[in-house]
């Protein structure tokens, strides 16, 4: 038993040095935190031999504001708008993950219409996150501006929907414990349906333009390969995990919300390289469109919030709960401990993009500096969530 484990571990672990500074005859370059393709304030200390990356140490914390401690000093509901600021591209998913955890902690049921609204909004979030990720990735590869603007045109339509529903484009603060804050009108649903119905046109065009592009293929195929074993051991989740061929999607595994009611497929990659990670987003968007169409057909009028949930003096019973959802970037979880008081005793965010960066060094070793930007782009990070 032990012998097999040791071989797995020997294979997985890259050479790690204890020192934070890199040593040797290599050129040490600090990439970031103001580098345009580090997606915020992310820094990497890279040791280069010519153009080849020999070591890479990520440096975090430029956006650290101790979100978890603020959560422990605020009421349960008071943290809800602050979860928007974690992954500020996907505030609806963050809201849902937090609401789901508190509902587990306090044993709260959610009415049917609210569950459908949550699925609709989470899948719309996935559409706009993946579309803009592809745009940013192309931007990092040197297709400056144009693909990003194509993606942002679609994203803006979805953000308009969010604005007309929740009052804010990005900081939606929409979900509540046991439901949602505001009901969607029939007109809103009709408008959303129209946008979703037109979405595959954009996908066809975008895939035609980028996924078959010779330069994109040259820059991404066989770059930054991630094996399935390493991906599992390093806790990689989301499209990055599935690009390595591991069939694990929290929507299927945990069957939270109303996902068991929808028919959808989980795309899997064969190679685990950057191209597969890019394709994964394109394919997931098509599946999300399918889920949305089914949700629009199934949603019925009804209450949107559980009336038994106290808004003021909300005190879950003492205990703990870990709830998780499949956010666009991976498994987003909230771990809460209640001591029976109005504030959580412990409020922990499991940030998918932070943990997905665990293997950044493994992916980049042996590739050029230019590839580092592409690999980092395909990991899909948002610093609001990484640094918390």
């Amino acid at each position: 038993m032990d012998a097999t484990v040791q071989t797995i571990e020997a294979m997985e672990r890259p050479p790690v040095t204890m020192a934070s500074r890199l040593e040797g005859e290599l050129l040490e370059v600090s990439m970031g935190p103001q580098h345009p393709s580090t997606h915020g304030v992310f820094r990497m200390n890279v040791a280069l031999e010519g153009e080849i990356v020999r070591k890479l140490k990520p440096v975090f914390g430029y956006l650290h504001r101790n979100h978890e401690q603020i959560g422990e000093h605020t009421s349960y509901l008071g943290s809800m708008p602050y979860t928007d600021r974690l992954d500020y591209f996907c505030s609806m998913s963050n809201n849902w993950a937090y609401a789901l955890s508190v509902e587990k902690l306090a044993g709260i049921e959610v009415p049917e219409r609210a569950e459908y609204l949550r699925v609709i909004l989470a899948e719309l979030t996935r559409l706009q996150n993946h579309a803009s990720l592809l745009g940013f990735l192309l931007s990092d590869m040197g297709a400056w501006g144009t693909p990003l603007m194509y993606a942002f045109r679609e994203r803006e339509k979805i953000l308009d929907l969010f604005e007309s529903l929740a009052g804010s484009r990005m900081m939606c603060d929409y979900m509540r414990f046991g439901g949602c804050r505001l009901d969607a009108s029939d007109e809103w649903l009709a408008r959303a349906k129209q946008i979703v119905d037109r979405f595959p046109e954009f996908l066809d065009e975008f895939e035609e333009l980028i996924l078959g592009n010779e330069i994109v293929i040259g820059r991404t195929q066989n770059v930054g390969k991630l094996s399935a074993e390493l991906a599992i051991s390093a806790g990689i989740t989301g499209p990055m995990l599935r690009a390595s061929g591991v069939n694990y999607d929290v929507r299927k595994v945990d069957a939270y919300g109303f996902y068991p009611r929808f028919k959808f497929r989980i795309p899997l990659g064969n190679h685990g390289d950057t191209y597969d990670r890019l394709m994964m987003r394109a394919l997931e968007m098509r599946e999300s469109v399918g889920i949305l169409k089914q949700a629009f057909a199934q949603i019925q009028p009804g209450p949107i919030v559980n009336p038994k949930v106290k808004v003021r003096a909300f005190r879950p019973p003492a205990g703990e709960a870990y709830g998780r959802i499949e956010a666009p970037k991976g498994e987003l979880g909230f771990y809460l401990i209640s001591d029976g008081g109005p504030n959580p005793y412990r409020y922990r965010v499991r940030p998918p993009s932070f943990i997905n960066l665990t293997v950044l060094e493994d992916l980049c070793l042996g590739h050029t500096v230019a590839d580092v930007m592409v690999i980092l782009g395909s990991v899909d990070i948002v610093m609001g969530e990484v640094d918390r």
Partner: protein
Amino acid sequence: MPLRNLEGKAAGSLDFARDDGAWMMESLDQIKSRIEAAVPGAKIEIVANGSPSQQDSLLIDNEHAVATARFLRVDPALRLDFCSNVTGVDWLDRVVKKTIKVKTVVEGVEKEVDQTTEEEIPGYLEAVYHLYSMTHKHGPVIIRMRTADRAECARLPSLTPVWRSAEFQEREIYDLYGIHFDGHPDLRRILMWDEFEDHPMRKDYVQPDDFEWEPTPHDDVLARAKHHYPPRPQMDGAEGIVEPLKR
């Protein structure tokens, strides 16, 4: 390596997953007894959770933690290969009051009397690991380890050699809670800067009296400003030619 050709563009070049349902997982009692059989000397305790989430956890002893973790990961029925969430919790010293009904004989009559006992529980730091199985698609199994006390360099064994995903998260616990993980390959601060000295997520953490210079301090800020910046000393006697107004 040759590049893949373009024929199966879009959907064709990737597979779709089959729906394979989740396995049923054993109960925590069964897991506990199997760990104790497989890891000689391991002391496992089930920590009950009063919340409706019903997520009970296993408290494992620090000495056999790595062996226990290996077992959980490798055991064919469990295969907990995915360590999702790793986090710290700080528990301060607390007094637990317990009320028990005791039957005593008062004046010849048997009565039930409430007897309150106070138990002092010394504080400790805790590391909590949420484990899932990607192979069998079950979970979570929650394991926790406790330090002996809340000292500055409280120690726990690192589980990073078993699950790589603990690498950054244990660094985060070290940074914010000050638990020193033995056997971690690269234990450094991760979110705070290297020169930072305290551990901000501890419950008794006091924020440093940082003060940012303000051009026009007033009210509370003025009081703090005076504390931080004593008035400029008279340099050459030219200051103070105007007497302050008497009110």
